[in-house]
């Protein structure tokens, strides 16, 4: 080869190639899809491509599901932040809240609701590291932000959480890698990201979104990254999950104890509490009268539900025109458990956080919600009575004169005290802080006459804030009847905003900012109107009174008497008979009293011969009454109800649906018009011809269209199944919305359709265990899950279960297991079983490996097809993977039939031909009688049957076999013994313990022994002993001579005696011939050679084998070395991580709550 360097490339300047390039330069580069390039060349290919496209289209489709969440006012989306401790959850939460509301929370706790867009609200929720919390969060969250420490990798909790998600419906998940700044080397960073992404994708789905967050700036993540994340959150679409789409639920963002203080004092805090929880309803409509379950507490009864004003309302119509959310609306945040505006709502108190030094007169310090509240308290200088007496009511803010009511002092005070009652119900802390209660009351009044109050200046507001209206944060109206309070809550605070803008303390400012309630003054203005209407009939529930009003109106309008059926049926005490007869609800009560004794007598002659009303379906045919049908006129009057009939009052509204028979005649249409037309009869009479013609034309048009459609393309008129279903669902949803729209009264509406999802409600719960309040911790989410009627019951639940492949131990029948099923978490004792040839359910002692089996346990019923996961313990100290099994509910029943095999053994004590007497199997003749005819078998496989009990040895019986059995045979009877699961149900009450992670259910006997230090009792008979088996001796078979003689030769025993005499050959010596000798010698030599060859070959092979073995050993050693290195590396990383954590812990003090 010559070392000459290659010639450098020169682009050709002339020639065909240069020409081609030049011409290509002129064309602009084609962008995007080149159709020509991908056009199929052959028909086959085209066909395949077409098929593939269609298949791909089909994968896009999902089973159409009804979304029960209302479109117009959906509840906030729950976004839960989940991850191991120290991964940066709180930082992310703070950053996100800051992004949406421009406020910095110091101590975010509990759910935080923010307005995220024009039609979107988000509730953020941080999930702590407790397994119970993770389970609860998995059940309610719509979107999970799963945080992973990028510098460390996945931790066990992450996988546990993902598996919990899987069994409870799998909401959307976005992965977030944090602590990526700790990885210094770019290459390592890239590799780590790639590895984690790969693992994440296998766990969720290929292409799942994974976010990367770099370092922390000012205690927050970089703004740009958070912005990107928030964009991803905002475009997220949610598919309804089946379980949540059939249950109402609520994530409590506030909880209050309403128990009278005196009761608590008397019982030393141990009495059952009355508790209210607040939150947005989600899922289906909540109905009063059903039970709710709070995971970690138990099943509770709802005493009342009331719809409150939305504390974090969506932007309303005025801002609708804008494309983006206005900046003002962005400030809305509702987080009662956190420190928004320096106020924290605890279960029974309100804490006011005062930043820095605070004095009353100091106007420079911006005042938060709390300070204002306290100062207002201090400012009160008149008693309630005085205030009420002075107060005036103006209908509108602009009205000059206040309303002058008849100054009935008693009435006033009464209403005031009523008001007070309501308030004290509204605000749990009110019962503790009496002054506060009083104050709020005062404020109530103040709001009624806002302007008035300002003029009067009765109460100087310590500092002039430039605001005209006082603020009440915590209060939300307790229903429609308290719309005055509603007004107060919906005051818009535009002014205060500008005031805050003046101050230059950015950080300080935002920390002391308040919760904002949007609302329109315009809206509120017309509220008092309604109020006054209410005031007239306060005693009657509003909807009822309304109805009566309507009813009376209707009565006046039409001569024909119309009944208000809803009121008569649901609202009155009239008997059905009275309703039918049309008794007046007012007079009936007196009537009834009068008739009371006549009543029975009357019945006697009305009803059957037995003299009682009979429960019958068919009414008695009254011949006299039916005689009227002899009348021709009456007979003709209903002709219109038949398709052949043409006239009559009924047909105008009855013609829908029948296309085939309908013959449209002029009169018919005239009639219809007459009904619809509002009184201009003349016009109709004038041109019946015209209407007739028009109707005919319309009909012809419709027919033509139909024909065209069918003729042109019979396929196009048909929709495909998917579209059809979707349309059907939409139609039904539309109907649902429209049907009750005219029922204006929310209470009446709640009665018929329940409380709608999306509304902010207050649920009052009774008989709540006191521990829930005592050990309340805002870090643990409180989920209120509605139960279906079927789920309130208990029963045996059969599930399909599979031990989790990462759980190290096998599960044993009758060992307690904690299930998370439906809303509930409970400990119960399952029995595992497998279907044995579809004949019986056979008990399994242990769960099988890598296989599903059945489990049956006693517990609360859940609908079939509900998923669950199971745990052996909830404690964080448990090592390894804590989810022990997953599965799905199959069947609910009140009894179960699971059997286990039972072998009864006996021994023969007398043997006849094929019959034998067996003893030691049963104890009495009665037992034998029970098993007569049962199949039995010997160990050697001879089958038989139990015949009859014997008298002498008790429990012995006669049995027949297919062959003669031996005395040494053991006879056994295979039977099936039914076992019942133990009725053990122990709800996991983690929220009722002070240390939530330390809840402990029933323990295993072994655990109890270990903890108590008790030795396992040893049964002597259970110990293993050496088995001694004497060798069996078999006697030789002897066949009687007579028998032998008569046997055919083939069956005769061929017993030949060994020959004693020498044979002919043995007697003689053989002398070989010389050639023979030679031949033998040669053969011998050849054999010797061969032997030697084989020996040498073997030796060589052994040598080779030894070499190979040596090589193998060497490799093995190398591998070991490598392994050791790897382990070392891993441990080093783990050590580093724990060290870092420890350092952090020192640095941030009490922030971390890792339990170990």
């Amino acid at each position, binding site marked *: 080869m010559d070392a000459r360097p290659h010639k450098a490339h020169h682009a050709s300047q002339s020639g065909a190639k240069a020409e081609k390039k030049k011409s290509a330069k002129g064309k602009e580069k084609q962008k995007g899809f080149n159709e020509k390039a991908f056009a199929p060349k052959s028909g086959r290919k085209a066909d395949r491509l077409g098929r593939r496209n269609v298949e791909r289209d089909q994968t896009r489709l999902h089973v159409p599901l009804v979304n029960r969440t209302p479109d117009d006012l959906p509840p906030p989306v729950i976004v839960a932040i989940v991850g191991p401790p120290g991964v940066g959850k709180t930082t992310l939460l703070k950053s996100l809240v800051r992004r949406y509301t421009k406020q910095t929370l110091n101590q975010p706790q509990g759910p935080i609701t923010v307005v995220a867009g024009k039609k979107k609200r988000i509730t953020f929720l941080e999930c702590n590291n407790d397994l119970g919390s993770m389970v609860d969060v998995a059940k309610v969250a719509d979107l999970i932000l799963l945080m992973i420490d990028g510098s460390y990798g996945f931790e066990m909790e992450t996988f546990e959480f993902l598996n919990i998600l899987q069994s409870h419906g799998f909401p959307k998940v976005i992965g977030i890698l944090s602590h990526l700044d700790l990885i210094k080397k770019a290459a390592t960073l890239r590799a780590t990201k790639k590895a984690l992404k790969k693992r994440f994708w296998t766990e969720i789905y290929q292409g799942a979104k994974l976010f990367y967050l770099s370092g922390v700036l000012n205690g927050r993540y970089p703004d740009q990254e958070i912005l990107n994340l928030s964009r991803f959150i905002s475009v997220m679409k949610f598919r309804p999950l089946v379980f949540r789409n059939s249950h109402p639920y609520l994530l409590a963002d506030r909880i209050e104890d309403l128990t009278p203080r005196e009761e608590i004092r008397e019982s030393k805090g141990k009495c059952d509490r009355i508790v209210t929880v607040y939150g947005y309803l989600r899922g289906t409509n909540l109905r009063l009268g059903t039970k709710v379950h709070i995971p970690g507490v138990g099943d509770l009864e709802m005493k009342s539900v009331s719809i409150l004003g939305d504390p974090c309302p969506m932007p309303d119509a005025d801002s609708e025109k804008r494309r983006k959310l206005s900046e003002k609306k962005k400030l809305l945040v509702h987080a009662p458990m956190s420190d928004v505006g320096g106020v924290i709502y605890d279960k029974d108190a309100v804490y006011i956080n005062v930043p820095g030094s605070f004095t009353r007169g100091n106007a420079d310090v911006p005042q938060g919600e709390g300070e204002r509240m306290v100062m207002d308290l201090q400012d009160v200088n008149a008693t309630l009575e005085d205030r009420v007496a002075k107060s005036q009511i103006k209908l509108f803010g602009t009205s000059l004169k206040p309303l002058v009511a008849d100054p009935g002092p008693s009435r006033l005070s009464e209403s005031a005290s009523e008001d007070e009652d309501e308030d004290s119900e509204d605000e749990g802390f009110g019962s503790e802080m009496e002054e506060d209660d009083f104050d709020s009351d005062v404020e109530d009044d103040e709001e009624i006459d806002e302007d008035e109050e300002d003029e009067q200046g009765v109460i100087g507001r310590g500092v002039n804030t430039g605001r005209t209206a006082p603020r009440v944060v915590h209060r939300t109206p307790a229903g429609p009847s308290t719309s005055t309070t509603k007004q107060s809550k919906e005051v818009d605070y535009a002014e205060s905003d500008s005031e805050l803008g003046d101050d230059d303390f950015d950080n300080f400012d935002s920390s002391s900012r308040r919760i904002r309630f949007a609302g329109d003054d315009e809206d509120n203005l017309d509220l008092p109107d309604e109020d006054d209407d209410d005031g007239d009939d306060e005693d009657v529930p509003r909807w009822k009174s309304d109805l009566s009003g309507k009813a009376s109106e209707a009565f006046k309008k039409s001569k024909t008497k119309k009944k208000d059926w809803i009121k008569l049926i649901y609202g009155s005490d009239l008997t059905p008979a009275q309703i039918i007869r049309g008794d007046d609800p007012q007079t009936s009560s007196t009537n009834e009293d009068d008739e009371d004794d006549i009543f029975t007598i009357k019945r006697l002659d009305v009803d059957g011969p037995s003299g009682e009303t009979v429960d019958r379906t*068919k009414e008695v045919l009254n011949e006299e009454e039916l005689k009227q*049908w002899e009348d021709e006129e009456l007979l003709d009057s209903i002709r219109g109800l038949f398709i*052949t009939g043409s006239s009559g009052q009924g047909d105008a*509204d*009855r013609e829908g649906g029948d296309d085939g028979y309908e013959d449209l005649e002029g009169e018919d249409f005239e009639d219809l018009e007459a009904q619809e037309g509002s009184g201009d009869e003349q016009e109709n009479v004038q041109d019946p011809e015209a209407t007739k013609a028009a109707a005919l034309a319309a009909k012809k048009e419709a027919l033509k269209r139909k024909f065209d459609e069918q003729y042109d393309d019979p396929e196009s008129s048909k929709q495909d199944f998917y579209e059809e279903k979707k349309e059907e669902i939409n139609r*039904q949803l539309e109907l649902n919305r429209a*049907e009750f729209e005219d029922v204006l009264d929310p209470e009446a509406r709640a009665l018929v359709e329940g409380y709608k999802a999306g509304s902010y409600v207050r649920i009052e719960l009774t008989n709540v265990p006191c521990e829930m309040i005592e050990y309340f911790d805002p870090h643990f989410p409180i989920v209120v899950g509605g139960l279906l009627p079927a789920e309130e019951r208990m029963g045996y639940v059969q599930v399909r279960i599979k031990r989790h492949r990462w759980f190290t131990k096998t599960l044993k029948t009758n060992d307690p297991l904690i299930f998370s099923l439906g809303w509930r978490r409970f400990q119960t004792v399952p029995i595992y079983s497998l279907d044995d040839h579809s004949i019986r359910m056979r008990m399994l002692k242990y769960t099988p490996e890598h296989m599903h089996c059945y489990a049956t346990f006693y517990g609360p019923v859940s609908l079939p097809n509900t998923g669950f996961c199971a745990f052996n313990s909830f404690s964080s100290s448990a090592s390894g993977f804590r989810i022990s099994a997953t599965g799905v509910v199959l*069947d609910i029943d009140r009894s179960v039939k699971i059997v286990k095999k039972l072998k009864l053994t006996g021994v023969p004590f007398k043997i006849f031909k094929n019959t034998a007497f067996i003893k030691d199997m049963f104890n009495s003749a009665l037992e034998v009688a029970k098993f007569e005819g049962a199949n039995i078998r010997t160990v050697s496989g001879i089958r038989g049957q139990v015949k009859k009990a014997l008298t002498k040895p008790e429990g012995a019986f006669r049995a027949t076999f297919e062959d003669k059995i031996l005395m040494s045979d053991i006879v056994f009877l295979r039977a099936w013994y039914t076992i019942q699961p133990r009725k053990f149900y122990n709800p996991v009450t983690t929220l009722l313990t002070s240390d939530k992670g330390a809840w402990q259910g029933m323990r295993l006997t072994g655990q109890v022994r270990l903890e108590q230090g008790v030795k396992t009792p040893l049964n002597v008979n259970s110990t293993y002993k050496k088995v001694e088996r004497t060798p069996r001796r078999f006697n030789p078979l002897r066949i009687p001579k007579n028998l032998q003689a008569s046997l055919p030769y083939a069956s005769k025993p061929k017993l030949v005696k060994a020959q004693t005499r020498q044979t002919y050959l043995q007697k003689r010596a053989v002398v070989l011939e010389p050639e023979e000798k030679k031949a033998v010698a040669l053969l011998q030599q050849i054999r010797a050679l061969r032997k030697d060859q084989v020996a040498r070959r073997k030796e060589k092979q052994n040598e080779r084998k030894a070499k190979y073995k040596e090589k193998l050993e060497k490799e093995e050693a190398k591998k070991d070395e490598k392994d050791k290195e790897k382990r070392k590396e891993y441990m080093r990383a783990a050590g580093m991580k724990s060290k870092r954590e420890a350092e952090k812990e020192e640095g941030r003090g009490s922030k971390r709550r890792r339990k170990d």
Partner: protein
Amino acid sequence: MSGTTSVLHFSGHQYLRHRLVLSILSGKPVRIDKIRSDDKNPGLRDYEVSLLRLLERITNGTIIEISVTGTAILLKPGIIVGGSITHECPVSRSIGYFLEPIIMLAPFSKKPLNLTLRGITSDEQDLSVDLIRTVTLPHLQLFGLSDELELRIKKRGSPPLGGGEIQFLCPVVKQVKTLNFVEPGRIKRIRGIAHAVRVSPQFSNRMIEASRSVLNRYIPDIYLYSDVYKGEDSGKSPGYALSLLAESTTGAIHCSEAVSKPSAAPEDIALLASRALLSEIKKGGCVDEKHQTLVLLMMVLGSEDVGRCRLGTPTERTIQFLRDVRDCFGTSFKIVPADSESSNELLFSCYGTGYVNANRSLA
């Protein structure tokens, strides 16, 4: 904690059947007292006890406690299992009395029901098996139950001795469909069955003749079948009856029935039945008067959507049923006049409870 469900409380012997049905469906225990406590012959009747026994057999885990005097019962419902069951009905009531509540329960059982009932097949008080077969079962079809839903009349039995036998087959559903039935349509056909047992077979023809004399004026599409059972299959007592049904263009069915009485000619019975049918048609609505409760119950048990149905004036039974439904399921109906002009038709609408057949097994 969850074991203490509240007990529903009713009193009086009236409406016993639907109360028991509601209790079993809702799973709430029910206590009914003052059952004929003021009567000369207090307590439960034999047919009521028989009904309780039947309910106990088609359910699993039901506990029924009857007080010593028989004037109070406590029913703790179990789950509905179904399966194949045979039951002897006492001759004091017809099979219809037992079949009506069973039809309400059967779709929600664990296994498809195969029920054989023996007794009287038609009497004056309850729906005859003919009506149940031709009218009640089509009403269930409105809610998505159609396959394998069948009633076979094996033998007929007239009062007083009975001796009839029927077989009722009912499939299992997961959830019933939401009903939206507001167009009554116009009557397009009339069908009827005239049966006669242990009397002259001419009786059924005579009934048909008489009935046609009334109905022929309205519509030509009238088929009245003569159904004569002979020998073993005709039961123990003589009797005859005519059951009529009128079907509208939208599938609304109205029905009537008249049963033989001593000293009444077949023609009179036929006239009675035909006129009752006319008055039933005149009452209007999409659902027959006798089937109001069935339809309303299925509406309540529908998915969590709004169901609507147009009915005539509610009967006493219906009114009490609506009240009891509110107690059991917490659901009330919105009842408004169907349109401003017609006087007695009402539009019933309710929000379904989303009742899912929890008994259905997947295994």
